[in-house]
């Protein structure tokens, strides 16, 4: 699996390199959340009620930002040809890309999610669960987002197309993620929601690479 590690290292280095992918997503995340009190009013009681859900909504939107670069850069400059002729199949390349997307974008966003939720007035007891649900949910967002990124290869307005393709697929993690926190805050059993969120993330990580690789082959041919 040497080829897989070479690929993963490169993807991580590129995400943290120039362009500031994670920082951009983080800034967008915080900025979106900051708009909420301006939109619904600054009453603490009202804000606290919607804080976890709003944090999840902003999280889903922020994780869209860097998707356009996931395959498009490699497609435009011809690297994708080279990746298709590599020591591991394109499915493994797609898995490495999804994993790197999760580690470099999903993980920083998951760290910021509790801060944003608390800043909006969420209870401090919710902090660990918000972090965990955002981290697990980020896995699903990265891999379903990757499918949209691969499908939009070669189209002119790729970024907009990705958002249109992918946002409906983001509905389940938002429902289960926000649902986990709502259930915990309301004193209900939150395990089923977190279980469904994990199932979504793992399914996306297991099946997403096949869809991404098929879309890449189609774009190359």
């Amino acid at each position, binding site marked *: 699996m*040497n080829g897989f590690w070479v690929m993963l290292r490169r993807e991580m280095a590129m995400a943290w390199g120039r362009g500031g992918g994670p920082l951009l997503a983080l800034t967008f995340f915080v900025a979106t959340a900051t708009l909420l009190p301006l939109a619904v009013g600054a009453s603490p009681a009202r804000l606290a009620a919607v804080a976890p859900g709003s944090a999840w909504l902003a999280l889903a939107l922020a994780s869209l930002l860097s998707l356009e670069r996931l395959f498009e850069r490699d497609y435009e400059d*011809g*690297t994708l040809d080279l990746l*298709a*002729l590599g*020591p591991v199949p394109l499915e493994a390349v797609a898995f490495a890309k999804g994993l790197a997307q999760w580690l470099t974008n999903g993980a920083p966003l998951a760290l910021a999610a509790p801060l944003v939720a608390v800043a909006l007035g969420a209870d401090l007891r919710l902090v660990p669960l918000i972090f965990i649900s955002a981290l697990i949910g980020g896995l699903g967002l990265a891999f379903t987002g990757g499918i949209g990124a691969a499908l939009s290869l070669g189209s002119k307005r790729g970024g907009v197309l990705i958002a249109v393709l992918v946002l409906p697929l983001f509905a389940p993690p938002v429902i289960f993620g926000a649902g986990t926190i709502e259930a915990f805050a309301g004193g209900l059993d939150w395990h089923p929601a977190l279980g469904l969120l994990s199932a979504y993330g793992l399914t996306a990580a297991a099946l997403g690479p096949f869809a991404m690789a098929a879309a890449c082959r189609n774009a190359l041919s």
Partner: protein
Amino acid sequence: MICAVHMQNLAIIRGERLLFQGLNLSVRAGEAVALTGANGSGKTSLLRAIAGLIRPHAGDVRFEGPLGDLEAEDARSQGVHLLGHQDGFKATRTAWEELLFQVQWTGGTEASAREASAGLDLDRLVGLEVRKLSAGQRRRLALARLVASPRSLWLLDEPMAPLDTARRVVFGDLMAQHLAGGGMIIAAVHDPLPIAARACDLSGAMRPLA
């Protein structure tokens, strides 16, 4: 290790247009083939079909190893090296980072990357970002990747276009070394290759569909 590649009765259609059909071509270890033909005659498409990136309309591409036929997928993932119009380097990364990644990805080592970079006179340039290199310098970086990777079948698309006269001689030597080591080269060219090569004119392979 690929010892030979055989194309049998190959036809390629792009869009609605038949580029060529009935192409038979065999290349064995130590041989070079220069693909010629007018613009749009299918030179690039043929290279991409050999690499498995596009599917031929008819016919097949067969790879032969020392012990008989190879699985096409294995042969391509270990023995085929495609160098297209685009070099595939990220503009904002340094030349060395990109070279090292591509060499390791195609099966080479850091030592072979250093050797190739010295051989192509790139040592002063590899610390720079790729966007600061000229077209010819980028092409030399791509040639360094080609030389540093242990892949036997080179598919080259207009490999010499951005190179100056002196570098074309150097590149000719590198191709001769590759062939002497049992390698194969299929190159789409307009100018003659600086080495002895069999010619294959794709315009001649074009016949109307039966």
